[in-house]
């Protein structure tokens, strides 16, 4: 399992999400809602999930798609599967 420090993880996830949602990384605050504040649709949610899986070589079951709502939830999700 790769050893990833928390700050790095947050920055990397922020960058992935910013690219997919096509917004400035600064707008992705921990609590900014992806759908309401940043215009995410369900297809983008899937792209975020797939990109995280690819970058960290994880398998995150699709039932977790509904948890992709804000940065802090995504960090939580990534941490959960990185620690498995």
């Amino acid at each position, binding site marked *: 399992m790769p050893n990833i420090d928390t700050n790095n993880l947050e920055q990397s996830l922020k960058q992935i999400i910013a690219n997919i949602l096509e917004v400035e990384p600064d707008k992705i605050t921990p609590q900014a809602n992806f759908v309401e504040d940043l215009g995410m649709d369900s*297809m983008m949610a*899937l792209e975020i999930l*797939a990109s995280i*899986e690819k970058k960290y070589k994880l398998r995150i079951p*699709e039932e977790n*798609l509904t948890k992709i709502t804000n940065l802090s939830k995504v960090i939580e999700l990534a941490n959960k599967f990185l620690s498995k």
Partner: protein
Amino acid sequence: MLLKDKVAIVTGGTRGIGRAIVFDLIQNGAKVLFTYLKSDESAGIMLDEIKELKGKAEAIKADVRLYDEARKAVEEAINKFGKIDILVNNAGIIKDKALMMMEPSEWLDVINTNLTGYFNMAKACIVTMMKQKSGVIVNISSIAGVVGMPRQVNYSSAKAGGIGLTKSLAKEVAPYNIRVNAIAPGFIDTDMTKDLKQKDELMKMIPFSRFGKPEEVAKVVTFLASDKSSYITGQVLKVDGGLAI
């Protein structure tokens, strides 16, 4: 080998049209996982026959009316074969009766298998296909869903529903390079049609004056599953000997 190294799931694979589809996909080089509801024995015999053809197949007992079982079948295909390229929604039942005699349970049984089953399987596969940025879904509908058939309000409704599902999903997942099409068979020689009354009368309605063979539907499934149909999506292809012209 139109489907070399492709992985397919076929629901209701041990009988009738489903069985012919499994064999046609295998003969075109696909690896196939097929589901069945009842007979372990028929599934076992089929796997032996496929082995003799040097084909690769798995069978799983699954009730597609239940999402969890549909999901289990899809997981099994991914575990065994690593991906899913093709889903063929085929499992179906009939409970024909005049509406005034039809029990609500007979309505629901047919809707649950023939429509909800299609939804369950499509939902269970779709995220995998979207991540792959490729995939093909072929829904076996029926001419009954296109023109309506007496004594089949349940079946015709479910099959028409399958066409709606096909068109809607085709638009939804086209950006992910996933194609979704339906086939509407007419009268095909299977267990499902063997007890039909007044076959001679029905034959008069068919320009080809005969029932179709399951293999004649299966070949069209292979076409729609292959790259030969790479620009076709959201369509309902009638395979009916001209019945619904």
